[in-house]
């Protein structure tokens, strides 16, 4: 629409009052349908089934997921807007948290919060004349395998992330090695692992090795979900990862800014993902400093 000149600016917003409005609960209950008769509700159960199948098919589990939960929490501790800003998480905290739906513990789950996010898209030409430093969309890809999760054979991957990632990398003309940081849709820790695996950052079942040793943390070689993400900052669907990527590339992230401040590489290229349903759809976006 922007290219065709139908409109000049597009605002993408998301907001909810999940803490008091009950809308999130309603949405999750509606996802459930007749499966409620078996005590199966919402997203946690679906992702728990996927995570258990993942544990059956390749090497994964809490030993991998704890690195994601704890790494993102360290970023949240640098972000005054994050819900978990003042709460550290030790390995003991991770393991001692209650199981919600096994194999997923409390800190494998994203947050529930009130709030909203918005981003504005326009042409690169127009963006250069605006107040904020521009960030360019270098590549994008979508793929929606879209079976009911109950009939899906992609619980342990490859999910839609594989084709979405390939398309985005091809459009951007880059590879995994060119990415400076990632902002990955993280409804659950397992989603982050599976998405990164399908994008090709590591081989199937190599997640534990890849995540351990602070890879995604401040000071790490592949900073990931640098606001704390939906696990530790706040849940705004795809706009948590996207807004953080844009702000990082603009250099507007304060104490958590990528670069010398956090002993990480100053970012030129940040990869983002969004994900829908129970792994039923995936969108990959590659942003580049304007």
């Amino acid at each position, binding site marked *: 629409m922007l290219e065709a000149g139908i409109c000049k600016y597009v605002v993408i917003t998301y907001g909810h009052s999940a803490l008091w409005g009950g809308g999130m609960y309603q949405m999750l209950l509606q996802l459930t349908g007749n499966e*409620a008769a078996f005590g199966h509700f919402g997203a946690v159960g679906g992702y728990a089934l996927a995570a258990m199948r993942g544990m059956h098919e390749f090497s994964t589990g809490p030993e991998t997921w704890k690195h994601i939960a704890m790494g993102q929490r360290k970023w949240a501790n640098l972000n005054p807007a994050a819900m978990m800003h003042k709460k550290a998480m030790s390995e003991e905290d991770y393991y001692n948290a209650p199981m919600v739906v096994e194999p997923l513990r409390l800190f494998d789950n994203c947050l529930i919060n009130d709030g909203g996010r918005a981003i504005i898209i326009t042409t690169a030409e127009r963006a250069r004349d605006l107040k904020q430093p521009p960030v360019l969309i270098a590549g994008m890809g979508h793929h929606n395998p879209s079976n009911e999760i109950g*009939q899906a054979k992609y619980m342990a991957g490859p999910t839609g992330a594989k084709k979405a990632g390939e398309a985005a990398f091809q459009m951007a003309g880059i590879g995994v090695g060119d990415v400076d940081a990632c902002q990955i849709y993280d409804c659950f820790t397992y989603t982050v692992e599976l998405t990164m695996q399908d994008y090709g950052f590591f081989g199937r079942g190599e997640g534990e090795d890849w995540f351990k040793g602070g890879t995604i943390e401040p000071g790490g070689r592949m900073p990931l979900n640098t606001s704390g993400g939906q696990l530790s900052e706040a849940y705004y669907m795809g706009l948590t990862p996207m807004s953080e990527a844009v702000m990082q590339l603009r250099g507007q992230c304060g104490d958590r800014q990528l670069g010398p401040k956090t002993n990480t590489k100053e970012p030129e290229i940040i990869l983002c993902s969004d994900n829908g349903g129970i792994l039923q759809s995936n969108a990959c976006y590659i942003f580049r400093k304007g």
Partner: protein
Amino acid sequence: MSYDQLTPTPDADSKPFWDACRNHQLMFQKCAECGDVRWPPSILCPQCHCRDAEWIESVGKGTVYSYAIYHQAFHPAFAAKLPYVVAIVQLDEGPMILTNIIGCPHESLACEMPVQVAWDDVSEECSLPKFLPIL
């Protein structure tokens, strides 16, 4: 919401399935064209879009594709059942259905374990197909 309101609400497509459940029969549509046995019920074959299908009765045996153990009650009706097991079972005829595994110690649960149907008559109107391990 009481548990009664959580029991399945059959629609035109799924009514034959839930009616058969009351007689403790597990019935699925088999495509007349490609032979795919499908779930959930629908007017078209999801594989080949053929409209013709016959209802066949499953033997009620299959394997666990995946499972998850609920430790929190998302509805008060399930508080007393915690922890309980939700699973996806792939029946020998092909379809995968969401169900509960009952009668199995949680430490013995595993993907690919063989199971067979066990009927739970939750009310006069509703019987749910649940699954037991085949020992």
